[in-house]
């Protein structure tokens, strides 16, 4: 039992949690305004889209793959949907999400086809699809930023779960869109832990060949994974657009590295087979915390990227050192 407690306290998740706590105390010491509901609300809002992407990326990484196409897929989904809606005069939030999801799923299927059927390594396949999606957006849909979002869709950004007013009378509101990552996290947790599909995802990441021998349909599972990721890339893109109240064709490009870093920091091994929803939430939380609050510590803007980079390097080093330690530890 003692050992169990020790294992939990030294797990990857807890290490990230310690870093978050340490950093929070540091920021709180410099700026006491940090501790408060307002910080929590603004953090939640900043984490929102990244969390959707990160949970999906985690599932891909657990299965032993990687997906770097989701920002491009998210962009094309949101941009194509909004262009179509403006052109046809449709104004329905449900339609907006559904169309973005369908576009996402089709790109996900394309990824899965390249990976499973053409046997292209996931990194290369999704890199290619990323270029196709991004290039396609710019070539066929244009480069203009659109800010006249259809009314009903736009309204979504003004619906809040709750609003907090601080002593100074400033309002902090948590958008209803926050429910999306919450649902994604809970769904992913249940599927990964309590369904054979979820266990199959871990099994493939552990040993693809053994999974095949055991009787998993590896191709089917991979198709499900990449198509689901595509689906949520589309939904995530749409969410981002609503939050920003603006549709821009390239806005999410480049976010994939930060998302992968968050996932790996949360304890997922880049070689596959390991990872947890809780860890990923913490990983995203840490990166968002650093990105948003370094300014409170007086770190100049130019240094922030450097500091974010350092934290990623340190966090990931701890994760990989731990994996190495386990590999070298005495076997029972």
């Amino acid at each position, binding site marked *: 039992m003692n050992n169990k407690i020790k294992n939990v306290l030294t797990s990857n998740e807890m290490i990230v949690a310690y870093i978050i706590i340490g950093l929070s105390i540091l920021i709180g010491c410099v700026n006491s305004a940090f501790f408060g509901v307002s910080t929590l609300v603004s953090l939640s809002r900043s984490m929102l889209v990244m969390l959707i992407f990160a949970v999906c990326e985690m599932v891909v990484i657990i299965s032993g793959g990687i997906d770097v196409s989701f920002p491009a897929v998210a962009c094309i989904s949101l941009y194509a949907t909004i262009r179509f809606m403006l052109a046809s005069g449709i104004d329905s939030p449900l339609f907006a999400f559904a169309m973005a999801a369908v576009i996402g799923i089709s790109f996900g299927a394309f990824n899965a086809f390249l990976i499973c059927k053409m046997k292209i390594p996931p990194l290369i396949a999704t890199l290619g699809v990323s270029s196709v999606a991004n290039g396609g957006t710019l070539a066929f849909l244009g480069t203009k930023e659109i800010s006249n979002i259809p009314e009903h869709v736009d309204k979504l950004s003004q619906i809040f779960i709750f609003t907090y007013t601080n002593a100074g009378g400033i309002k902090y509101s948590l958008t209803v869109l926050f429910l999306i990552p919450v649902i994604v996290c809970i769904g992913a947790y249940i599927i990964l832990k*309590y369904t*054979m599909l979820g266990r199959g995802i*871990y099994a493939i990441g552990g*040993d693809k*060949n053994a999974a095949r021998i055991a009787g998993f349909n590896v191709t089917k599972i991979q198709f499900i994974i990449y198509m689901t990721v595509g689906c949520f890339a589309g939904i995530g893109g749409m969410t981002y657009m609503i939050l920003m109240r603006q549709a821009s064709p390239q806005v999410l490009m480049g976010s994939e590295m930060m998302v992968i870093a968050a996932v790996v920091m949360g304890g997922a091994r880049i070689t596959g087979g390991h990872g947890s929803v809780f860890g990923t939430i913490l990983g995203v939380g840490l990166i968002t915390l650093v990105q948003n609050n370094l300014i409170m510590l007086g770190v100049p803007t130019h240094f922030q990227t450097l500091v974010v980079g350092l934290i990623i390097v340190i966090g990931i080093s701890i994760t990989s050192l731990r994996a190495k330690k*386990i590999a070298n530890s005495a076997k029972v």
Partner: protein
Amino acid sequence: MEMNEVFLKLEGIKKSFGGVEALKGVDLEIKKGEIHCLAGENGCGKSTLIKVISGAHDATEGNIYIEGKKIEHLNPIDAIRLGIQVIYQDFAVFPNLTVAENIAMNRALMTGAKKMDWKKARELAVMAMEQIGAHMNPDILVERLSVANKQMVAICRAIINDAKLLILDEPTTALTAKEVDKLNIIIRRLKAKGIAIVIVNHKLDEIYGIADKLTILRNGENVANGGIEEFDRTRFIKDLTGRDIVETTYRPEKSTEEILRVERFTRNGAFEDVSFVLNKGDVLGITGLLGSGRSEIGDALFGLAPAESGKVFLNEKEISIKSIEDAMNHKIGYVPEDRLTQGLFLDRSIQDNTVAASISKYLIKGKLDHAKMYEVTKEWIKKIGCIAPSPNPDIRTLSGGNAQKMVIAKWLNTEPKLLVLNGPTVGVDVGSKSDIHMILHDLVKAGVGIIIISDDLSELIQNCNKIMIMKNGKASGMLEAATLNETELTHLLSGKKEDNNE
């Protein structure tokens, strides 16, 4: 359950791949509760036969009967439903999942479950472990287990799927002697339950320890079949290889001409204060348990992980080995422990592999002389008795024995003064093993110093005249091989004898 009932019967099984006959009419009968060993050299058709039995391959011709019923077409799922379970060499377990989940997963998949029932998985795992007498924490990740325990997980997984025939593909390759004993106990338990067991193995000593029956395959045919008591060592080897192999014992001519002298060789945490002398004509064996420092001495002599202190004299001249480059400049060659990852470029041709250590010889005015490399490789293939059509195919296509011969040829092509071989015949069939020993004997005669690091004690006794035993990083004695037998050496190794003396 009736013990003498036949579980599986094969009649005239033939299997060909694109015109090449891998199986040329194999008959096999396996009874319930019988431990049946299947032996054969690499490429004899063992794996193909197992794949036919497990439904992975369709037999081209022949009949399969299971429990008396003729099976027209056997596919893998049917085979599992009929109770046929194969445990492959790599066990096909999931390192990232818990013991319980590994054991229960196949069954959950077989029953078409959609939900993961953790409680049931644990119960099944505990039950299966009880049945075979294994003790493992069901919640621990399999990556934390030793090889032997990973194998236990694979066996547990097989038996909860109601195995009636368990096929173990070379189950002892990675096990220590103690672990093999434990495995044998478990196999006997399963036998007592009426499960038929097929073990693929070609180590005679181990077969004697466990088998009821023995079938020997050669070139896709079964050449011998019978109770284990019908086979003695000579017949076994003859049936296995199809030729008479004389097990020679190497006894050198005495010489005082020194090739290698090592003094107070030390690397912290690996070995300490090791000294020995290798004279012309000597074959030095270094043995010891895993982790005793035996492999590390080889690594140090080749500069892979250099020693921190101590002196090395080659032909009575002191040399310093700080890197592999140093070792190679002094004409030291090293056949590493793990041929697949350290000794070969698997996806390169035989030619590329053969000239890899001596490539500079063929660099003429900045250009590689491909014609010469081809000729040299061809000569080595012939000289070293490797069965390969030409220097062109990937070295991956060679069997273990032939590939190992080419690793040795690679070093011989550098004209070494000293050749250190770490586990030279691991995973090598009996015929090639004897060939490799002959090659080593010829080399010694030609004046090359040979050091064999191995845990195969009979190999050391047959091929070395001096044997050094390593214990916890220290050399615990230099023995004359002529005065030793295998039992004595085993005792010395595990330290029993010494303890008695104290």
